């Protein structure tokens, strides 16, 4: 067997699968890219050829433009293909719509690039599927034991409770435009909230895209449509960057909320001026990361973007060979 360290190489452009001549989530334009999911730090434009799930390609078209790469190739979950002798299979990662792990097999060894993932239920995408492998390459966004995301039902219940307690205030929730936004809407709908939800303009197109893929988000309206007096008691979603913006001035004494795994740390919430922190994340928390290492049963783990030290320490103490793999270009606070 050829150990994956002989054929997977971190380069300034991203992780190169040498025998196949392609990169995974490259950060600069390359001849051939495999894209795990549609977040902008993973899915960049300008590649000569890009392969991804049909959902991810649709997201890339919406965010980058009609031609996200010179040539694109859709590949469904669980349909292996060969690229330069390397067998490539996309497997659900449970992160956002279309997100995939990349399973790579070459000369008798198997490596899995997780991309970003989570293990808990998400009504907008199929769940993460653990794949046994020789090397598992994992993200580490929340790889510290202080990050234990609570049940998202409880977090949504807190939001709805606050809306009942402050019926004359707008509830303005910061959400990442892709994934968190649509998941939160689904969770709120599942909790029985059937009123219209108002959206910042930057969120509308992706919600429509999710709908096209059959995800029912209920009654959504552009926030610009609500006259100033109508904001009392309504739920408005906006990208985090526009929370403190002039944009929100028309609203009725808004309760600022933010749905993110970072909200677990009180000082982070405080720093952003968030009054109602909602700990809802699309990344695996500490327990999920540790559980995943058990589930994939890989004798070796490479840890990328995030808090590598802690996960490497944990894996090592469980008898797993582990090392940090430095890949540039992934944002620490990435969506």
């Amino acid at each position, binding site marked *: 067997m050829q150990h994956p360290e002989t054929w997977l190489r971190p380069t300034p452009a991203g992780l190169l699968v040498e025998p196949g001549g392609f990169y995974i989530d490259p950060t600069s334009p390359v001849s051939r890219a495999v894209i795990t999911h549609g977040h902008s730090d993973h899915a960049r434009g300008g590649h000569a050829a890009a392969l991804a799930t049909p959902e991810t390609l649709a997201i890339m078209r919406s965010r980058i433009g009609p031609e996200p790469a010179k040539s694109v190739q859709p590949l469904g979950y669980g349909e292996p293909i060969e690229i330069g002798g390397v067998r490539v299979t996309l497997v659900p990662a449970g992160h956002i719509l279309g997100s995939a792990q990349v399973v790579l097999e070459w000369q008798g060894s198997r490596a899995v690039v997780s991309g970003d993932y989570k293990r808990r239920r998400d009504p907008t995408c199929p769940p993460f599927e653990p794949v046994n492998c020789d090397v598992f390459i994992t993200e580490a966004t929340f790889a510290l034991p202080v990050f234990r995301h609570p049940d998202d039902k409880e977090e949504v219940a807190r939001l709805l409770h606050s809306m009942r307690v402050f019926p004359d205030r707008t509830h303005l929730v910061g959400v990442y435009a892709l994934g968190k936004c649509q998941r939160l809407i689904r969770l709120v709908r599942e909790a029985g909230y059937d009123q219209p939800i108002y959206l910042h303009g930057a969120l509308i197109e992706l919600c429509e895209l999710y709908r096209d893929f059959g995800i029912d988000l209920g009654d959504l309206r552009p926030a610009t449509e609500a006259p100033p007096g109508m904001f009392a008691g309504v739920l408005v979603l906006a990208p985090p960057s526009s929370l403190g913006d002039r944009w929100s001035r028309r609203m009725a004494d808004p309760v600022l909320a933010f749905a993110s795994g970072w909200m677990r740390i*009180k000082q982070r919430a405080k*720093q952003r001026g968030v*009054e109602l922190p909602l700990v809802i994340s699309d990344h695996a928390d500490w327990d999920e990361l540790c559980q995943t290492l058990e589930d994939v049963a890989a004798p070796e783990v490479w840890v990328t973007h995030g808090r590598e030290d802690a996960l490497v320490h944990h894996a090592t103490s469980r008898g797993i060979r582990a090392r940090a793999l430095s890949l540039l270009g992934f944002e620490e606070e990435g969506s």
Partner: protein
Amino acid sequence: MKAFSRLLASLLYTPARNSKLRLLKAYLAETPDPDRGYALAALTGTLVFAEAKPAAVRDVARSRADPVLFDLSYDYVGDLAETVALIWPAKEETGQDLRLSEVVETLTLAARAKVPELLEGWLDRLDADARWALIKLLTGGLRVGVSERLAKTALAEHGKVELAQVEEVWHGLDPPYRPLFDWIEGRTPPPQIDTSRLFRPLMLAQALEEGDLLSLKPRDFRAEWKWDGIRVQIVSGPDGARLFSRGGEEVGPAFPDLVDRLKFSAVVDGELLVRHGEAVAPFNDLQQRLNRRKPSAKLIGDYPAFIRVYDLLFEGEEDLRHLGFDARRARLENWVAHAGLASGVIDLSPLVPFQDWEELGRHRLGAGTLNAEGLMLKRADSPYVAGRPKGLWFKWKRAADTIDAVLMYAQRGHGKRSSFYSDYTFGLWTQPGGELVPVGKAYFGFTDAELMEIDKWVRNNTVDRFGPVRQVAPALVVEIAFDSAQRSTRHKSGVALRFPRVARIRWDKPAGEADVLETLMRRIPA
């Protein structure tokens, strides 16, 4: 603990003062005695558990969690209470809440050796938020954006009494303040307190902002030097004297040479200073005497202390606080001439005469040579009001001194800054074209936007890494402002800066043109 932790978390997240006040009042109205009294004590900083140390909390947590993971987490989160609260392995909830009063009363009686065991048992019973509140309570310093004054204001509003009425009795009562609640909620008459040896809350000054002077009339104000010592209140009567710091803590035991000689009946406001011949010694000298419970005769002789007084609150039994400043000043001068000077350890802080703000501004430039921090402006008609009332007293600090230094090392911050290089070590050249020698560290003074820029610069100019510290190329000049420079034997450079902060980032200035060490050494007062 549930209600208390909910209160603390809401206070932390709520920026508006009025909303905080509403939360506090709701808590006081809904929470039974004695819990609410203890909560009030915690919020006003009155509750101190000398036997509970942060180190003990950390050790308990490190024994329960993997120590390596604990340290990484603490480094990331930056706040001990929050790290422990989040990392603590959850147990089945018992469903039964732990009362704040049970914690406070148990801890008050507990020996230090018992604290870890108690803490562990409690942490197992609580959820993450309540664990956080518990540790905040134990280690002091809640930091939820509530001043002592705001907490007392909530109490006064809850009872529909005046804040001044609460202030008057506050220091004569102890947690959980049952007589206070009984009184303001109308069940009993006001508590009777022996005020003869009681600390009276101080009157504080606002910082003078740019432009304030335009709207103030020189003739309405009196000026004094703002001495660089520690503010003290002398409370002296037939039973002896007590010396309080500005927060109402007793500092007398460290200064027997003063306390033994304060034989009069008065409450006096002044500055504790150390004398160097006829002049006021730098703050550094006073520091030698602070927190020494039993100072030696040599220490007392080397650093002779005295009190420079500037206000008289009580003379004998007579409360002077309602009088205007000028009237109190006349009484003070008369009192100093007799009782004050007779003590041998008191002198009068002189008024600084001036006609207009320009003249006063010139005086301010000379503050440094007197070892004064600047000037105080006091309205001639201002009564002595507890707290920091608006528009009556102003502090006008002397302009900070600055040097142009070179950034040498940057360290990742804590907590909300843990992903930014926000702690900077800077240095000066030994000589033009020589090497850099570090002279201090600065953590603030820059905007968030500047922080992002420096952070980026640090990442792009790193020449070496030591754990969380990066050594950077000697290429970025930072203008460092500081209050004073002092000789130091602990620093390689031989100089220590008081209160250094980043005044400006000199992206434009070549590093070779930054200051040399000699320039800074010349700023050390003789």
